[in-house]
């Protein structure tokens, strides 16, 4: 069902994080190769903002900073860099320790960025003017008491769910209790308050991920600790009069120690029906629930893409084949534009032109029989009203 292949990247050192953009077309990776001093330490994480805000990336580093990057087109005269280049719009220097994770808040909250750092502080920044990415104001500073390693926003855009994020701690002291804390925004106090602590997670947490909500009535949280855990947070129906944080009924849905070692990352697919995890055993495992909500492993892929053979009890449905590595000089052009970032203009996974230039929408005319008279709805049109980078469909509206 799943086939792996290798992709040529330009990194000289380890890749710490990979991140897809909203459309699954472009990918950002960050590494510890210090070829260009964008950060002076290893870059831990990289993340994309919603394309509505432009082509915006955030990264965080061991050097105690987080940075926001924006792609700029057509202003560079440097032919080597191609038509676009990335410039650093701001550096957030509030942390006194290594910034361990950075995440944009869900789109409906506006352009907000959250960082968490090794000293246990979660900071929420907001860009009040989405046109000016060099100004970010620190809106909230939440102390979690424990060294933070990862953060995840609840992506639900439903009004029934107030903004909520979960923080994981990599503190290895088991006696400090729950290593996953969930904070929720309170409309009345305009502050984030702790809504829940998952007391059963006592070991160091390396990654945490809220599942895409997709209109479900509950939230699902995957945790990478010494094993893979999936929690379900069912909001209790609360009376309209109560002002406190939402109470949750916390259920552990699954717990897998198949990695037999520390689990480093967890990631949900777009419908939150597939979970991928990676662990110290060098394997990527895929998990899926059946209709009875029983989760089980549906695939194991070795970290180097080679097929896993001979192990007992492995599903046979997964075939891992290492394809020939795609190597073109094109990625060198794009890859070096921001130093350690690598931005191949990804095409469809199956299309052969993965590293082709970004095509002008030549196919737009051919595809455009979707009653063009009908105005296309933009999710938040007012944000664009003054924006120079106006997407084409709006003009198409009239």
């Amino acid at each position, binding site marked *: 069902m799943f086939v792996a292949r290798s992709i040529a990247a330009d990194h000289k050192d380890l890749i710490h994080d*990979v991140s897809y953009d909203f459309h699954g077309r472009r990918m950002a990776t960050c590494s510890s190769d210090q070829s260009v001093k964008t950060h002076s330490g*290893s870059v831990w994480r990289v993340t994309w903002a919603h394309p509505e805000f432009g082509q915006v990336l955030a990264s965080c580093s061991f050097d105690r900073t987080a940075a926001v990057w924006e792609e700029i087109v057509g202003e560079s005269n440097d032919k080597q860099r191609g*038509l676009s280049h990335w410039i650093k719009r701001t550096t957030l220097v509030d942390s006194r320790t290594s910034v361990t994770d950075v995440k944009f808040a869900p789109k409906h909250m506006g352009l907000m960025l959250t960082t968490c750092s090794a000293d246990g502080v979660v900071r929420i920044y907001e860009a009040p003017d989405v046109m000016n990415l060099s100004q970010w104001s620190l809106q909230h500073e939440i102390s979690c008491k424990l060294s933070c390693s990862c953060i995840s926003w609840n992506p639900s855009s439903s009004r029934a769910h107030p903004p909520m994020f979960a923080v994981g701690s990599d503190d290895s002291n088991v006696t400090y209790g729950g290593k996953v804390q969930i904070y929720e925004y309170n409309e009345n106090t305009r502050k984030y308050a702790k809504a829940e602590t998952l007391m059963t997670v006592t070991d160091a947490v390396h990654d945490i991920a809220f599942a895409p909500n997709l209109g479900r009535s509950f939230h699902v949280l995957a945790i990478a600790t010494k094993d893979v855990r999936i929690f379900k947070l069912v909001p209790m129906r609360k009376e309209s009069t109560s002002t406190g944080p939402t109470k949750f009924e916390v259920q552990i849905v699954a717990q897998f120690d198949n990695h037999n070692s520390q689990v480093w990352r967890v990631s949900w*697919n*777009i419908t939150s029906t597939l979970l991928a995890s990676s662990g110290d055993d060098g394997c990527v495992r895929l998990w899926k629930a059946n209709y009875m909500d029983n989760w089980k492993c549906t695939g194991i892929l070795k970290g180097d893409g080679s097929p896993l053979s001979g192990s007992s009890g492995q599903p046979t449905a997964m*075939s891992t084949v290492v394809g020939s590595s795609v190597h073109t000089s094109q990625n060198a052009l794009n890859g070096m534009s921001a130093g350690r970032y690598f931005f191949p203009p990804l095409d469809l996974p199956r299309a052969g032109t993965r590293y082709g230039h970004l095509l002008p929408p030549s196919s737009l*005319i051919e595809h455009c029989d979707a009653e063009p008279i009908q105005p296309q709805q933009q999710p938040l049109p007012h944000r664009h009203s003054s924006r120079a980078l106006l997407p084409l469909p709006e003009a198409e*509206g009239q």
Partner: protein
Amino acid sequence: MSGSKPDILWSPHHPDRYVICDSELGLYRIGPVGSAETKAGTLPLSEETAATLLAINSDTPYMKCVAWYPKHEPECLLAVGQANGRVVLTSLGQSHNSACKELVGKEFVPKHARQCNTLAWNPVDSNLLAAGLDKHRADFSVLIWDISSKFSPETSVAADKIRLSSVDLDSSTVVTKPLYELGQNDACLSLCWLLRDPKLLLAGMHRNLAIFDLRNTSQKTFVNTKAIQGVTVDPHFHDRVASFFEGQVAIWDLRKFEKPVLTLTEQPKPLTKVAWCPTRTGLLATLTRDSNIIRLYDMQHTPTPIGDETEPTIIERSVQPCESQIGSFAWHPSSQNRMVVVSAANRVMTDFTVFERISLAWSSTTSLMWACGRHLYDCVEDGAEGVESMIEKDIATKMRQRAQSRYGHDTVQVWRNHLLAGGNDPQLKSLWYDLSYILFDDDVEEMPAQRDAVYLGITIIEKDMECWSGSDRQTDVPRYLSEERCLALRLCGWISRGPDIDVEIFLRTLEQEREWERAAAVALFNLDIRRAIQILNKGATAEKGDLNLNVVAMALSGYTDEKSSLWREMCSSLRLQLKNPYLCVMFAFLTSEPGAYDGVLYESSVAVRDRVAFACMFLSDAQLPRYIDKLTNEMKEAGNLEGILLTGLTKDGVDLMESYVDRTGDVQTASFCMLKGSPGDVLKDPRVQCWIENYRNLLDAWRFWHKRAEFDIHRGKLDPSSKPLAQVFVSCNFCGKSISYSCSAMPHQGRGFSQYGVSGSPTKSKVTSCPGCRKPLPRCALCLMNMGTPVSNCPGTGKSDEKVDLTRENKLAQFNNWFTWCHNCRHGGHAGHMLSWFRDHTECPVSACTCKCMQLDTTGNLVPSDSS
């Protein structure tokens, strides 16, 4: 290193050879498993690799330490330090090189016999071999030997050499005078040459670390510490050194040698080996005694000597290469993060690769990307059919496929939507048939009063039902009939329009679809045993003599009314063995007492519609609502879409759909289904809005923009309140009035454009000026005509080919006429012209404007992934 405990050394030049030394030296070659030499002698190291023993050397007893000669020639030369302090050069395998023969067998003997603890070849001047010895009174403990001393090239006759080495070994090849003598009155436990300067030797002495400079042997730099064992230089940062003592590893920076830059968390057991990974920066592997795990420390930062007070971040990991206790390990010199591990006992070897921490991310299109070390891997869900398609595809993949097949868009034949969805999901089939029955019941059309009721599903219909019962004279089974019950039966699909309650049409449809058992059951429930038997017979013939159906037919024909007959007894006991649920319920029905049909009603594998229809026929007014309520709650709980029949598109239906979405994440079906529920209160339910928004978001993320637009149109038709307002207006430069407004103010927006005329259209009236002030509209940057002029034939588009699809052409022509402009440089023109311009150009068509209009919009450059 004691004699019994094994150690491993990789060949410095052959990436596939290593030496294991315990009581003897064994040279192994590693290769892929099952390669040409799959001899009996190969030892499996991992799933892919195996080792072959090439040579054994047991010439040197009392081995304490071994070091491999770093130069390429002679290749298999090893220095062995012995318990008596002697250092012997020995070789593995046969080499025909004279230089090797010269060297092999050479012995370097210290003045006083004591244990040799460590050996280190100088990495640059390979003639220099440093040996660290135990303390002997005031003697020196670090001796540096020159292996080329007494080397006489003129006596290189091969025959002589052999004779010499075998007979005169002791006398002629013994060297007793070291080149340098260091570390007086001390013991040396570990040694390594510094890579930043090959004249410097770092030695772990008794209670201090010392750096000796060969250029000035009288001086040494030293620091007092207990961590003096296993000194080793980081091959990537030549100033970084690791050493250990008991369970604690100290990391030193030679630039500020006063104290360790950091110490790693102490292990409960004493360490035995510490080694930097040669292929990866900042990775230190440590091994403790009696342990089967190797602990790795990942120091992902550049070491800085100057006062950075922050504690460097170290990622601690542990790997378990094998089950047994590990004797020793060695990093492969070139293969990435690979090591060979040898067990403490029995010399069991394992080839093992330490994987980097893998970070991963799903793309919106169900492809998984992960990074392992420096490499990226991409993994997609393979659409391959066949055996693998047995495993259900992920709902994301399904929804994508369904979106492409226009699932949900068939508003005429609503039931066909389940075919668009792939046609293999019974729940979806049931759902769309239900909706189809609910929405297009002809009788309902005639009775507008009931129209609303129908939307509400059977539950509501059932509630206000004044029933009259008619009992069938044929048997004593009471059957109930009423107008509402008929309506319910119609919704179940059992009977069609009209006042008659004939199921014959339905039976024929079922026969056509070869659902023999179901047809027979329906016939039986209509108390027509003869017909049921006939159907079964027909089925048996059609299915090429399906014995089962014939047997059932036979059993049916033996039906007897008697309460205590053998037939009845056997049927009720044997029916449970029937695999087909419909056959099962047939006998359940026949053997039940009137009014007690639990065997039929609670057979969960029978379709809900059939059970409900059955209940409508045979349950009394008291029983029926109870049963329906129970079933409804069951369906809601389970999120079973068949239950939509009961709930209709009401709030209960939303509840049911909520549990369906909770279970499957299929917001697509939920959105389309709920859009059919025209009454506003369903669509206004925040949950429904949430599903719709989530589905639109999915389509956006998949770049199915055309599908999203189609969905919006579809939604706008069914839910007028969702129609978006116009977002962009074109206003006249002079009077400021909206031009587009005047267009859209016309009765049909489409006509506003049609008057611009497509090629060949007779009416070519021009709207080239502002309708408000009559001033001309701006000119197109390309054709320099005023806007409003129809676009002349677009160069480059093969019009003749497209003529066939006239409606399509119309739309395209209209689009070509549209205004478009760059929001950065404000230049623009006809949309068609602009598109063809930017197909070949990046800069704005206006001279001297260098704006790269098209590329400013990154999303606009993405090609939609749906073809409409």
